[in-house]
Every structure is written in C-alpha cells, then in structure tokens.
C-alpha cells in the first residue's frame, strides 16, 4: 500500500487550500462578469460561455503552483467534495454550472518530493441563465404574434396600448413563476402599415453570490407590423 510522506501530505494539503482559493476567485470573477452588463437574450448563452472559458486564477505558495481554469459545465445535480467553496460546490440542475480544471505542481527539494495533480471540480451559481434566455426569447415571440395578429386598424398609441398591456401582464405572470422580473417597452410608428418596436427586459434579482447579492439583466428587441402595407392594393 502506498502512503504519502509527511512532505507529500503537506504539499497536498496546501494544493487543496490553494485550489479552493483559486476556485473562490473564479466564482467571484464569474459573478463580476454576469453583473457587468445587460446581456442580449439571443447572444447571452454564447457570450457567457466564451467569457467564462477565459477565466482563470493562479495561486502560488513556495514551490507550489495551482492553476484553476473555468468553463461552463453541463448542469444537472452533481455532488462535489470541494467544501471550501460551499455553498457553491457541486452542480444543481437549472443553475449556472461551472467546471473547474485544477492543475497543481510543486516540489520539496529538501525532501526530494515532487507533486503533480490534475483534478476537475464542479461549482455553480444560482443563476437561472437558460430559463431566463428561454423566457426572454419567448416573450419577444409571443409579443410579435400578439401585435401581428391583432385586429386593430388605427396606428395610434391608444389602440396599441391595450395589446401591449395584455402582453405585458401575460409575460409578467410567466416570468414571476420562474423567479424573474420582466418589463415591456414599446414605440409605435404610424402609417397605413403600423409598426410596433418593442424591447423585453428581464432580470433575475437577489441572487446570493460569492461576493454578496447581485442581479443579472438581459434584453431583446422585437418589431411587429399590422395593417395592410401602404403599397398594397385594397380589396
């Protein structure tokens, strides 16, 4: 049976602590990233995937170096033993999952011991990213359909307002069910053919992150037209 020497054990303990600190820094950086901007609902998934993939953290102590790098994980309920990162260790279905690759290298020249270890860990932030994107894009789609299929003929705010108000109420109900806040802004461009430009704004607020509560915001614009185009002959 192989047993670690005191020196190996000490390096291994230090590596665990440094990996935990590196993982903590990745989680803080991910929170900073998520709250740094208003994301476009249609591109948020790819952008956050790309930017998470560029996060890394480098920890050193004596001759020991621990490099932690991140990429978005696949999700699902997975237990992980990196308890230093509690309550964010492991993966929870529906939450933003982050896979950490930990590479630790070190040596103790006096004891003639070298150390190299590669581990993967899963952590998460309670951000419901995919659900938010789905709700946002669905809000744009349903609002477009509601406006396009409306029987309104006058292109004025007073005729469009009830449609948008009804749409907004329906969206708010869905969003609240999923834990989001949602808003619908619009403007009307008149003519024989009426165009309604609108923007859906969605937020998950009060997320308990590693450096305190934060929110993630996303937006997506849409446009819908109703009424006959001016150039088409009337029957």
């Amino acid at each position, binding site marked *: 049976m192989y047993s670690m020497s005191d020196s190996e054990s000490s390096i291994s303990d230090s590596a665990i602590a440094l990996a935990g600190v590196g993982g903590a820094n990745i989680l803080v950086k991910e929170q900073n990233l998520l709250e740094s901007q208003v994301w476009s609902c249609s591109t948020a998934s790819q952008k956050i995937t790309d930017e998470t993939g560029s996060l890394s953290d480098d920890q050193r102590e004596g001759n020991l170096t621990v490099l932690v790098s991140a990429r978005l994980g696949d999700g699902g309920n997975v237990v992980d033993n990196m308890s230093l990162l509690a309550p964010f260790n492991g993966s929870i279905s529906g939450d933003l999952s982050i896979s950490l690759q930990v590479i630790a290298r070190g040596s103790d020249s006096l004891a003639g011991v070298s150390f190299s270890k590669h581990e993967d860990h899963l952590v998460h932030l309670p951000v419901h990213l995919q659900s938010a994107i789905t709700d946002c894009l669905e809000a744009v789609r349903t609002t477009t359909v509601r406006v396009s299929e409306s029987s309104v003929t006058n292109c004025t705010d007073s005729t469009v307002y009830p449609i948008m108000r009804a749409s907004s109420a329906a969206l708010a109900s869905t969003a609240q069910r999923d834990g989001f806040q949602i808003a619908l802004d619009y403007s009307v461009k008149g003519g024989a053919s009426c165009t309604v430009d609108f923007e859906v704004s969605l937020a998950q607020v009060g997320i308990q992150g590693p*450096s305190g509560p934060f929110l993630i915001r996303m937006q997506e614009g849409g446009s819908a037209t109703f009424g006959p185009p001016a150039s088409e002959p009337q029957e």
Partner: protein
Amino acid sequence: MLQEELRDYVLAYLQQKGVFWLLQSPPESICSELSRASNASVTLSATIGPRSCGSPPSGTVYVAVNLNVIPEEVTVEAWSDTLE
C-alpha cells in the same frame, strides 16, 4: 501541538465553513466567529485587510493560511501554547 497539526486544524475548519463567509461578513463578525471556534488548546484569529482580530503571544506555535480571495485578502491564523 506541531505546526502541521495546527495548519490541518485551520484547513479542516475552513473546509467545514467554506471561504465565502469570510468575504461576506464584517470583520467584527469574523472575529467573533473565530473566537467561538477557538478552544483551550487552539486560538483562531484572522487579519481582514488592515483589521486584525488579535496577535499571538510570544512563544506559541503559530500558522497563517493566506486566502487572497478577491477583492479582500484574508489571513486566517491559529496559535497554540500546548506543548507536545
């Protein structure tokens, strides 16, 4: 108590508590919590940015685990005057 044992004690404590409470708690809460977690043979302490919960008396075995978690650097310290 040996320095290695003291270090293991600090790491075990951090494994149990996690590191994020150190980021999210005010220094006075951290000091109170570490004081509660201390016992007859081991005193736990911390330095949070410029604020220190306390300093080890001379002649004690001492370890410091530095947690440079952004944005605040925290050093969790422990000391013991229990002789082997």
